[in-house]
């Protein structure tokens, strides 16, 4: 593994290996001394063209726990606001000797371009690109699911090691159209053997969803009652990607909340063991009510903690071991090296 660009690039064995590595990383995080010397002397650049709190802090924490040097680069207050191109930014990072670049960008495919354009030797980790992919979020969701549903949660961090998500049913509810989290999760959870149902109003279901390996439902109550999901993942309504006040995707926030929000009544329909997830940040009162967000079945805060362990695992797997030092120049952005090697 040289880059992590899309959750769809991982095979089942690779995904399980990342999750197992994350479990051992998580086990080290309950120690008094949480810092490990593993990536001493390596430099990780957080290249964020889009606002983010938890993902950036999570990657920064993960890199620092492994003793890497971290440089934070956000588009605001940098030369990007003066009009510098992605290429020149990349060349600058290359000149500074970055070993890994964690990139978030509003344009789908920007991490892929960084990885394959030949500007950088560094490993590239996609931390969210447009409405395309957010693979580490899917990995941390899979890790959280496995820990609670495929192992014995009493074991703590190492619960479910070696297992996949075979036979689990996960409902992903809300703004699928704008959600890279949903796209990454559909790919990864399906690879790991889970069955995914997307639930959204028709206006927030993307064109072409019929080619995805999942089911689509427009009726949340029916999915919760008949599908008996093992986990319900609520997605944030991404109002910044909608034109104004819902942008015509739904009549009003209240109506959205009534039809697709997770509240106490819907929580009561769910099977006893079902967990409630949310990638954050939450719009309390819109897609999730306070009762649901704060209920004991919500694992939302644990998802954040697991995010650090998963990102430690990803950085470890990308930055150790022998990799081919010469970058593979690729002229088109649609060719994936994984396919080229296959």
């Amino acid at each position, binding site marked *: 593994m040289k880059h992590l660009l899309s959750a769809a690039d991982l095979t089942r064995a690779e995904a399980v290996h990342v999750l197992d590595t994350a479990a051992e*990383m998580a086990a080290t995080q309950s120690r008094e001394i949480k810092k*490990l010397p593993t990536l001493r002397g390596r430099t990780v650049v957080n290249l964020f063209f889009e606002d983010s709190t938890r993902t950036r802090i999570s990657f920064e924490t993960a890199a620092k726990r492994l003793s890497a040097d971290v440089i934070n680069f956000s588009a605001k207050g940098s030369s990007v606001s003066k009009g510098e191109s992605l290429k020149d930014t990349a060349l600058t990072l290359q000149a500074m000797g970055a070993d890994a670049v964690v990139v978030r960008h509003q344009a789908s495919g920007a991490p892929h371009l960084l990885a394959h354009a030949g500007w950088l030797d560094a490993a590239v980790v996609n931390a969210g690109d447009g409405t395309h992919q957010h693979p580490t979020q899917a990995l941390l969701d899979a890790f959280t699911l496995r820990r609670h549903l495929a192992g014995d949660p009493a074991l703590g961090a190492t619960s479910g090691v070696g297992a996949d998500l075979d036979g689990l049913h996960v409902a992903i509810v809300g703004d699928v159209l704008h959600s890279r989290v949903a796209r990454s999760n559909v790919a990864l959870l399906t690879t790991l053997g889970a069955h995914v149902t997307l639930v959204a109003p028709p206006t927030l279901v993307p064109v072409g969803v019929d080619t995805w390996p999942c089911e689509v439902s427009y009726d949340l109550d029916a999915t919760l009652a008949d599908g008996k999901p093992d986990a319900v993942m609520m997605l944030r309504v991404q109002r910044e990607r909608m034109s104004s006040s819902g942008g015509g995707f739904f009549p009003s926030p209240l109506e959205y909340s009534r039809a697709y929000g997770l509240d106490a009544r819907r929580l009561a329909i769910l099977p006893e063991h079902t967990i409630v997830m949310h990638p954050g940040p939450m719009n309390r009162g819109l897609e999730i009510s306070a009762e649901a967000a704060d209920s004991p079945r919500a694992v939302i805060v644990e998802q954040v903690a697991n995010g650090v362990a998963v990102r430690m695992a990803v950085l470890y797997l990308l930055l*150790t071991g022998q990799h081919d030092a010469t970058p593979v120049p690729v002229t088109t952005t649609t060719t994936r090296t994984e396919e080229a090697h296959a």
Partner: protein
Amino acid sequence: MSHDLRHDGTSTSAVPTTGTVVLGPTEIQRALTRIAHEIVERNKGTGDVVLLGIPTRGVPLAHRLVERLTAIAATDPGSADPIAPAGELDVTMYRDDLRDHPTRTIGRTQLPPGGVDGKVVVLVDDVLYSGRTIRAALDAISDLGRPRAVQLATLVDRGHRELPIRPDFVGKNLPTSHTERVRVRLAELDGEDAVVIQPAATTPTEGHR
């Protein structure tokens, strides 16, 4: 070449096709029994002793040593020492050669309930060679607590140290050349007990420990 190596599904290492068996099951048993006695003698009992096996093959060796320490304690009714507990200490994240090998899988670290603070930690590994694994283990221990002392037990010492590290308990000193490979095979993981020396460069890419 009087070895009888069988392949079974539990094997995690390549089955040596060539090689000389230098220790058989009986010799390994005897060496471990002697090491257990030496641990008791050196520490005047096993009161504060904690055995930490270094994955992969140090872990079953540590458990076997605990069995023997238990048997020794049973022959001495006057001894009030608690049985020495065994744990696992993974050193992968402390290694200095992470960039020179294919990415290593991280093993499990599991300390006994009492931890290592104030204890005598006996590190257990299968083969002592450059000493770099033990260097990493010492760093790993210092992140987990502050033992009163750290000792080192190894089934095979093959020489060629690159660091000032010396074992306290040795099963067998095995003079080897740099190019040879020493393989320890244990019943728990490989289906049989044997220490095998293989001649040079049969699998040149695989690292030694």
